[in-house]
């Protein structure tokens, strides 16, 4: 982890800079206002539910869609004004890795290599090895599994030695082993200094993979920041198991800076809920208050059987930011 030290001081030029990006299709604003920057060596998450404008934004990054307003700079080049230079720095998979099924893996790579200056057969060999497709590279792509297509897609994205890698839902359709491999692979690329932009509607995915994240909902960026910082910015949840329950709960409700969550199931992940006994009381509070409260409870003769601090998930962050708009 030490090698992957994300650099984002203001002096350092961002690899990807998005300013005031807006898109109107018909009469509808699909993307209202998107701003963020991505720096070399970091994995940047782009989180939002389906229909939030994620794909439209990604397409605007790679010149598939012309923004109504705003600019995208990649490696300092404006994508609209100098698409050839800007796109030279990008490798991308937009949505599914759609390659030509009637060509072999190698023919596909050769096809895309011809579109980038200075890519030779050796580089094709390299990326093939990198994604682990060497054994099947001369088979027709229509015989590939989804995972192999995904890997071929990444191979073509890496062909031009990009400074920025854009992956749209990279773990879609992969099995758990494949997902784990993919995460490892993306981390390695970032460690080598590449900026990786990963979109996902899966919260756990971003939490496990990304250094920084932008959360998008209804065409607006709701928050940008380090994943840890975003979590810190919110109060944590604390789960209490008390005996007897009634006086304990009364005491917690009366304490300052503590609010009892009545419907715990709606705010906490199922995985966390599974580990909590039905009698537990869920509160939202600063963790620093725990020792004082425990002391108070004990003094009142309430036995504290368990106290558990639970970090909020990105879903909770999202719920708080959008005030109830849910993620499917």
């Amino acid at each position, binding site marked *: 982890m030490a090698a992957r030290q994300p650099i984002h001081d203001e002096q350092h030029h961002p690899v990807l800079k998005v300013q005031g990006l807006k898109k109107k*299709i018909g009469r509808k604003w699909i993307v209202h206002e998107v701003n963020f920057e991505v720096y070399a060596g970091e994995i940047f998450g782009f989180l939002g539910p389906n229909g939030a404008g994620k794909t439209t934004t990604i*397409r605007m990054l790679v010149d*598939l869609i012309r923004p109504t307003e705003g600019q995208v700079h990649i490696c300092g080049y404006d994508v609209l004004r100098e698409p050839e230079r800007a796109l030279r720095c990008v490798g991308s998979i937009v949505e599914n890795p*759609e390659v030509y099924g009637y*060509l072999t893996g190698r023919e596909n790579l050769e096809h895309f290599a*011809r579109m980038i200056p200075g890519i030779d057969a050796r580089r094709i060999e390299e990326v093939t090895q990198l994604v682990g497709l060497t054994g099947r590279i001369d088979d027709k792509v229509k015989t590939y599994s989804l995972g192999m297509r995904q890997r071929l897609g990444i191979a073509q994205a890496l062909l031009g030695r990009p400074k920025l890698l854009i992956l749209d839902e990279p773990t879609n359709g992969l099995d758990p082993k494949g997902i784990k491999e993919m995460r490892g692979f993306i981390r390695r690329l970032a460690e080598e200094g590449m900026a990786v932009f990963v979109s996902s509607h899966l919260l756990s995915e971003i939490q496990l993979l990304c250094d920084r994240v932008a959360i998008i909902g209804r065409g607006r960026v709701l928050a940008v920041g380090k994943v840890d910082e975003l979590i810190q910015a919110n109060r944590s949840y604390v789960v209490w198991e008390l005996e007897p329950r009634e006086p304990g709960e009364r005491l917690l409700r009366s304490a300052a800076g503590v609010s009892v969550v009545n419907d715990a199931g709606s705010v906490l992940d199922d995985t966390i809920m599974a580990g909590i006994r039905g009698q537990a009381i869920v509160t939202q509070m600063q963790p620093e208050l725990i020792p004082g409260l425990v002391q108070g409870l004990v003094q009142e003769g309430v036995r504290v059987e368990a106290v558990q601090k639970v970090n909020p998930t990105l879903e909770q962050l999202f719920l708080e930011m959008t005030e109830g708009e849910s993620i499917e």
Partner: protein
Amino acid sequence: MKALNNILPLVKNETIKMIKKKRFYVILLVLLVLVPMFAYAQLRQAEDKREKFGTDWRREVQQAITDNQNSLGSDRVPEEWKKYRQIYIQQMKYYLEHDVNPREPGGVSFTREFLDNAATLFIPLLIMGVGSDIVSSERTGGTVKMLLTRPVRRWKILLSKLVTLLMFVSLIIVSTCLICYLISGLFFGYRGWNMPVFTGFQLRGVEVDLSGVHAVPQWQYIFMQAGLIWFVSIIVAALAFMVSVLVRSTSASIVIMMATLIAGNILTNMASSWTSAKYLFMVNLGLTNYLAGTPAPIEGMTLGFSLLVLTVWGIASLVVSFLVFTKQDILN
């Protein structure tokens, strides 16, 4: 020169895709299946005639003249048809006067006649089979995203596709001629290269001006036919190309082009009184008619006119294709 160096690898890509997609092979296969059928049908027709006229083509031609003369007197025959027949009679008489068989059987003659018949529908359909697919298939398959996120300007990508399409237009026409000759030769023999064919009939109403008529060897005639068909095919290809850019689904774009071409064929047969139909491209596909001296479907059409109309359509569709493709948002 630099731009060419940029384009060439792209053309190579498109060529390889075209071949690997087996579209071209399908077209060759269609020809290999259909041409023997046409050849066999014609063989049977020739056998029928031989029963009546033996090997004597002069009697056959004279009988054709007499039959047509008879139909001229009939009130049931529409006036336009009479015009066709009058011109036909004059041409046939010219052949008889010069003692040249207008329908000498042979592989070369078959090819010539096949090209005449295939010029307005069959070959355009083949071209369309390749052209309608060339852009829309990338969109249907989603690979257009992969293509357009390369560091290559969109117009270059589209241009490479256009160049490839034109390359295959030429290949299709040449292969049609070759397949026709090779297969029909099995039925009729491979001779007839130097058989004289008359061209240069100039039409003045129902009168044929024979002052310009001259004989060319049949191979030269086919050479000219193929050139004219090539031009027509390029225009059809440009239109199919535009439809392919505008319509996302390959099947929809094939249907659109097919309907247009067939509508053109129907119009040619009945539009003689709707004169402004001559500005439609699909009525102008019969360029080989000007070579054979067959009257144009609508009054006032000449080779120059048809070439102009076709060129305007072709250029317009290319302009539309490039404007749309370079501006368009790739949403799906």
